[in-house]
C-alpha cells in the first residue's frame, strides 16, 4: 500500500485497522506498507493511520475493501465509461458487460467456479481487444488486473 502525506520520517509506521504493518520510508511525503492478504480478505471499511517515532498517530484515512460483487460492478462501470468515451463500440461493451454481469449473478448464488469462468472469459476478450488495438496497454492492464483481483478473492 502506498500512503501519501506529509512529515513522514524514517521509522514512520503505517497501521491498518489498528494493526502496525511493515513500512518502508520512501520520502517525507510517501510511505509503502506491506498489507497481508488477510487484511483485505473481508469486505468493509478500515482505518489507515501513520505514527512517527515518539509521536502520536496521524489523522485516520478510510480504506474500503469491496465485496467481489461490488468490485465486479466497478469493472462494469469502467467498461461503460470506455464505451461512453468512444473507446469501445456497442458490441464490445455489451460482450464485456455481459460476462461481468453473469459473474455477479453466479457469485450471488455461490457458484464461484462459474463466476471465475465468466471473469476468465472477460480477460480473454480484453486481451483480444488489446491485440486488435482497440484498447491501450494501460486500459487493458487495468481491466485485467481488476478482474484478476476478483478471481483471487473467489479462488
Amino acid at each position, binding site marked *: 500500500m502506498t500512503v501519501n502525506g506529509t512529515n513522514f520520517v524514517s521509522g514512520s509506521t503505517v497501521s491498518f485497522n489498528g494493526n502496525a504493518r511493515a513500512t518502508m520510508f520512501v520520502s517525507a511525503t510517501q510511505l509503502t506498507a506491506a498489507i497481508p492478504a488477510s487484511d483485505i480478505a473481508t469486505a468493509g471499511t478500515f482505518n489507515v493511520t501513520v505514527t512517527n517515532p515518539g509521536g502520536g498517530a496521524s489523522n485516520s484515512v478510510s480504506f474500503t475493501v469491496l465485496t467481489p460483487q461490488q468490485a465486479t460492478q466497478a469493472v462494469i462501470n469502467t467498461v461503460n465509461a470506455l464505451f*461512453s468515451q468512444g473507446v469501445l463500440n456497442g458490441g464490445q461493451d455489451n460482450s464485456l458487460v455481459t460476462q461481468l454481469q453473469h459473474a455477479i449473478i453466479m457469485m*450471488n448464488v455461490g457458484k464461484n467456479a462459474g463466476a471465475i469462468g465468466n471473469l476468465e472469459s472477460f480477460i480473454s476478450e480484453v486481451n483480444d481487444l488489446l491485440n486488435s488495438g482497440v484498447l491501450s496497454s494501460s486500459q487493458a492492464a487495468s481491466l485485467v488486473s481488476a478482474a484478476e483481483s476478483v478471481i483471487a478473492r473467489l479462488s
Partner: protein
Amino acid sequence: MKHQSFPNRSVLRFTAFIVLVLAAVAATRTQAQTFTVLHSFAGPPSDGAFPFGGLFRDAAGNLYGTTLSSVFKLDPAGNETVLSRLGIGTVPGVFGPGDPYAALVMDPAGNLYGTSRDGGAFGLGTVFKLDTSGTLTVLHSFTGTDGGEPYAGVVLDAAGNLYGTGSSAAAFGVLGTVFKVDTAGNFTVLHFFTGSDGCGPSGGVIMDAAGNLYGTAGGCGAFGQGAVFKLDPLGNATVLYSFKGGNTGGSDGSGPTGGLIMDAAGNLYGTTVVGGGFDTSGTCGSQTGVGGCGTVFKLDPSGNETVLYSFKGGSDGAFPFPLGDGHLVRDAAGNLYGTTLEGSLGTCTGRNQVVVGCGTVFKLDPAGNETILYSFTGGGDGAFPYAGLVMDTTGNLYGTASSFLALGGFGTVFKLRSRRRHPRSPASRLRAQPRVRRPSP
C-alpha cells in the same frame, strides 16, 4: 352406374398440407400476443435508465416502477412522470448511490415503498417511502449488521408494516436477513440466515393469510444450492426445501434467486436461476459449472418439489429472475408467466451472450408445455428482462426490459396484449357465418 370421382394422391397431400398449415397458423395465433413498447427510457438527465425491477399496477391502470436512477409513473395513455430521481451519475450507466433494483408497493393512501441496493447512510442500501407529494423519506439505512444491499422490494401487510429481505453483508459476517419496518418506521430483523437455512436471500418474501412469510435464499442451504424458507409470525424459521442442483447430479434446480407465489392450495411456485440438469456437462451456453439454465419449480405443502420446466438455453430461454426482483404470475387457468434474462429465437445474435438471445417472456401451461410469448431483439424493444410481470384483469401482461449502453437504449416498459377470445353469442356466431350460395338446378 354412377361414377364417383376421388381426389388423387397429390390432391390429398396438398389438402393435408393446407390443413397442417392452417392448424399451425391457428396454433401460433392462439399463442400470439401483441407486444407494445409503452415507454422507452431516455436516460439521464431527463429520464431514468435501466429498469432492473418490475412494475406495480394500481386500480386505475397506472404503472409504477424504478430504474437505476429514478422512480417513475406511467399513466394508461403512456405518459411518463419521473416521481423521484435517485443517484443519477454524470456518466450514463455509471450511477451513484441509491440505485433501486426492485419493484414498488403502494399503500391505500397512494404512498409508494421500495428499496435501494446502495446508498443510504452507510452505502448499503435503504428502505424508502415516496409520498403522494413526491417527498422521498428513507425509512431505514442498512448498516451491514442488519443485512444490506436488497435486490427485492418489500411487501405490505394490512396493518401497513413492510417486510423484505436484506442480502448478505460479508464485511459484517451477515449471511442475509428477513426484516420488518413497522408503521412507526421501526426496523426489526426477524431472521438472520445461518447458512444451513440458506444465505443471500434476494427474492423478497410473500405473506399468507396467517402472517407466515415465505421466500427463497439463493445460496447455501443443506446442499449449497439455495433453499425455500418459511418464517412464522413468532419468528421461527423452517427450511421447506433445500436444492441439490448444480452439476452434482441433482436436477431440481439451483440458485432460487427469484421470489415465490402461492396458490389457493398452498403450493408455492418459483424459479431457480441455474441448474435443472438438462445438460449433464453442467453448462448453459458458455456458462460453465452451473448445471443447467434454470428451472420453474413447484413446492407442495408437504415439501415435495417438482420441476415443472427446465430451461435449455436455446429458444426457450435461460436464467429466470437472476437478480432477485421478480416472481411468476399465475392466471386462473393455472398457466404461469415469467421472463428469462437471455435466450430467444435467435435474435440478438452476434453480441457474444452467454446464451444466444436477448431474453424472453414465457408461458408455462399446467401440463408443463412452455411457449415463448415474446423474444426480445435488443432493438427498440429493449433486452434482458431482469424482473417479473404483472397481469391485469383481462390477461394483459406488463413488464420491463433493460438494455446495455451498447445496445443504444436505456430500457423499456412493455405490454403484451392478451389474445384471450371472448365467447360470442349464438346470434353473432350466425352473423359470422359466410353466406353459401346453393347451386341452382
